[in-house]
């Protein structure tokens, strides 16, 4: 069917653009290579698991971000998990964002930020929102 070919082409283009734009990396190809006739839906299954898992993590992260003072250890732990699963499916962009976020957590800890209001808060606040948004954007 001509329509089928069209759709396939579209899918192929979309897939390629995800790589080109840096959303996906080599690990995603690894997943695709694990798919075969005995496991024809492997990629879909893994990614579905990933979405479910990520939704849970993001919800936890959002909750944690609303707390004051921020529990950096907790946040770092969530991010570690999120980064890990993103990395395993080839979610390059999300992985990078997670790393960035963890750096902020580390910085926050290092400065003993916990109970202070001050310039550090201002520094952190826009990043918090940015992380949240980028996590959302790259995820949704």
């Amino acid at each position, binding site marked *: 069917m001509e329509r089928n070919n069209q759709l396939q082409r579209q899918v192929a283009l979309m897939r390629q653009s995800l790589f080109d734009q840096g959303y996906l990396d080599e690990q995603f190809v690894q997943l695709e290579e694990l798919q075969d006739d005995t496991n024809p839906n492997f990629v879909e299954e*893994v990614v579905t698991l990933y979405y479910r898992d990520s939704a849970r993590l993001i919800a936890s992260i959002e909750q944690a971000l609303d707390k004051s003072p921020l529990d950096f250890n907790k946040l770092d732990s969530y991010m*570690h998990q999120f980064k890990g699963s993103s990395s*395993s499916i080839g979610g390059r962009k999300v992985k990078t964002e997670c790393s960035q976020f963890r750096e902020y957590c580390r910085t926050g800890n290092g400065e003993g930020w916990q109970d202070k209001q001050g310039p550090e808060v201002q520094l952190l606040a826009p990043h918090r929102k940015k992380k949240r948004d980028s996590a959302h954007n790259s995820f949704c």
Partner: protein
Amino acid sequence: MGAAAEPRFHVLAVDDSLVDRKLIERLLKISSYQVTTVDSGSKALEFLGSLVNDDRSSSDALPSVSPSDHQGVDVNLIITDYCMPGMTGYDLLKKVKESSSLRDIPVVIMSSENVPSRITRCLEEGAEEFILKPVRLSDVNKLRPHMMRTKKLKDQEQESQEEPERHGDEIGLPPPPCQHELETQQSQDPQTQQIQQSQQPKSGNNSNKRKAIDVEEGLSPDRTRTRYNGVATF
């Protein structure tokens, strides 16, 4: 290989991440291994049939390792994530190596973080390999020599009680390098390779010592094997 049919090795995979468990299960299955996945170190130990609470080493002359429902379970390799809540992969490694019934099972550690001190610590504790996540097929391909080596040693033990000084190297299997395939920090590879290779003789001596004490209980191939096809005990 001496075996007529290609032996089907059984791998126990331990990871708290759902996604990673799915991935490692597929990687192992596609490599023709039998797979059991669990989500924690304590569940791993349960499955292995010994909740090691204390250090019972050579007094452990158990004829059968496992509890009744896991009669004859034969695990040829344990692959575990490092960072897990509760019992870490390192803790699990230690428990396995401290157990007289489990210590000869090769253990491989996976981690998303390339921390040299962590790698060293794991290898020193007796891990065969340290694999950097994300795990891929080329990593899983490196596992077979470890399982073959252990199985061969076990088979030889059954043939005769004589234990010559043998180890993986001398059986003809080269010690697999710890390739981490990390984009950055290429310099780690030679370092960890050195560590891996320097560890080999050490663990070899230990395993010979252990063999002299232990008889491999309950792990002979002619026992009926219960097949655990990816039964995930969550």
